[in-house]
């Protein structure tokens, strides 16, 4: 882990302030989230206090501070998906997985987030599970879907 960070830091050797966001984005794509250690190391590289970096990272939606689950689910809440009932889907996910958007289940299996528009407006509501799109999803289909996913995790 420490080594990975060094490789990324090398790309931004000058450690300028404007490199901060691309740096954090790259660490997140690489590790899946921003760990405490990563933020401290970024701070010493850029020469900024950790609180400032944390303040900046929490301002933006896309930074995560916990690892995402083995299966990450994205629920679209764009206007069109909303009109076709995406909020009921979010509620159902909350019920089924017992977590709120942005959280990860305790066993680390599932995490889900609500995103603003994925671009499949005619096929709403759209959800994305592990880079695969599911279209016209109804809340009633979710229990079976989650059972299937749990089965996949167990047999992995």
């Amino acid at each position: 882990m420490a080594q990975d960070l060094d490789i990324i830091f090398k790309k931004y050797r000058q450690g300028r302030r404007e490199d901060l966001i691309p740096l954090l984005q790259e660490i997140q794509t690489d590790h899946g989230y921003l760990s405490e250690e990563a933020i401290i190391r970024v701070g010493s590289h850029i020469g900024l206090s950790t609180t400032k970096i944390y303040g900046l990272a929490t301002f933006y939606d896309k930074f995560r501070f916990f690892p995402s689950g083995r299966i990450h689910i994205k629920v679209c809440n764009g206007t069109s998906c909303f009109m076709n009932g995406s909020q009921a889907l979010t509620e159902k996910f909350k019920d089924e997985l017992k977590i709120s958007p942005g959280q990860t289940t305790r066993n680390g299996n599932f995490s889900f987030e609500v995103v603003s528009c994925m671009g499949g407006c005619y096929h709403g509501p759209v959800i994305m599970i592990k880079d695969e799109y599911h279209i016209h999803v109804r809340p009633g289909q979710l229990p079976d879907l989650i059972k299937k996913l749990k089965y996949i995790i167990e047999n992995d």
Partner: protein
Amino acid sequence: MEDLKRFLIEKVLLFESDTLPSATEKVLQQLRREKTDVPVIHISSNTSSIIAGSDKTFNTVKTYIEENEPSAVAVRVGCSGPANYEPLVCVQVPGKNKLFFRNITEEKVEPLLNSVFHNDIIEDDLLGQTGSKGFELWPGIAFVNELPFFARQKRIILGNCGCYDPESIEEYIARGGYSTFVKTIRHYTYEEVCDIIERSGLRGRSGGGYLTGLKWKQALNTSANTRYLICNAKESDPGSFSDRTILESDPHRLLEGMAIAAYAIGASTAILYLKSGSDYARSRMQKAIDMTREYGIIGHNIFSSGYNLDFIIKTEPGAFVCGEETALINSLEGKRGMPQLKPPYPTTSGLAGKPTVINNVETLMNVPMIMKNGPEWFRSIGTEKSPGTKVFAITGHGRMSGVVEVEMGTTLGSVLEHIVDGIKDGKEFKAIQLGGASGSFITPESLDTPIDFDAMKQKGFGMGAGGFVVIDETSCMVDFVRYYMEFIRNESCGKCIPCREGTGRMLEILESVIKKPSSEDSGTTLERFKGVMQLESIAAVMKDASLCGLGQTAPNPFVSALKNFREEFEEHIFDRKCRANVCRGLRTFSIDVEKCTGCTVCAGKCPVNAVYGTRLQPFFIVEDKCIGCGICFDVCKFSAVIVK
């Protein structure tokens, strides 16, 4: 490949005259796949078609070709517009017109291709044909550009979308691409380019409608050693996807527009600011930039003109407010994306304190066409004060949906009637929501408004990023307003108080309107009504006192909904009724005595024990206890629970 590259650079890009020699034209025709000797199958491939399954279609077509028609070629092209027809497949048999088919999912590929190659077309999925002189007609098949969806459009910006492979620069050059840029940097000065764009009357398409040429001149006239051009491709309004479609379908035209704009202001760095999560668009843009670099279209001393240019892609880290110019610059500088007080405008002091021009994707897409055809040509399209066209992303309950482009001056009603083709499932039309989270609702009475910056402004509408949501009677306006308010509340950056507190309070009041009240005496009703009255004054304060456009326009959906659908708000407040049966808190549940079998499932699931009864006898719901969660409705297998 190297030969082709040298040929395209020397014979096409650096060729001085407008008409190319016929030998060159012949090669270009091959590249454009106009005269082909082998069958070509075009499969649309962008985010919306991939969601509909076009990747699987593409793979199936490939396997089919390997097995049955080894000479045929499968090509991924961009999106031509209609999202409800995705995945769209176009088959071109040598010497014959192109045929378009809609909704070709993987299982339909084999019968479809069999039918085309055996000259026995399946009419079910057929959309129509396109072609020009010298090609054989398919008898009895309509032309695609005569379909109302396409016939009413004027496709200038989207002209190339869906026609070529976005990952091939050769095809773009064969379609006349980049030669305008090369001519511009070789024959025009910075001022001349600004002048041409100003004379064309091109206005910024991101909402404000500011003259683009004037903006460029301001940046050019500010003395500085470095200037920046930023293309704002961060459309994060929920439900608008036109920029993304353009990025994915015609990346090279955008790069050409950016390059010309950067030249006009004397900038040597052009930044493309992308929305987070649009990975597909990012990879296509990155490929396009790499190819332009390879061809020497960008880089150091471009074609010995003495002009240097470089493109950089930046992805925003996830904040709606970063669409605002000063917030965008802050986020590029590695700070929180919070807006700043203007002036100074970015054109005088922007990124790193240097003059910066920020233009929208759609604006920049117009630039190469204006430079090519001249400002008078552009002036002849659209209305006098708003020349050109406007792109809309149509979603919602309309029969058609997707990205469309219409001439300025077309009325909203005509778009709705001809292009959207009315409402799905024979429902009643209610309103159009134009311009995303900061837009307003357009009712049937205002449908005669022409699409024009000034005419819209006069009526208080904004076009914003071009979101066009068609709403039918099944949607509840109060819930809609709450949805937008929730979005804005989450996205408010928190810098200025009117926006931060205002959005929070407005959302709170709207939620109290659609929530089931704890007690139903006249006092609470009065309080609720008072809340709604206060909403109007909060909206007025936010409009006047917020720092940036996000806060100033945040109350727009509410204000226009209250103006046009006042009776719906009153119903929610006084009668506690939602006519569309959407607001969960206001639903009342009862059990149909005839249908109930007394299976006790609903009684067991009810979280507040509001369902009473004896086993195998009809149950009933105590309304005072019921919280309207709807679980009994969901679990009942005999549809005995009735919602009102």
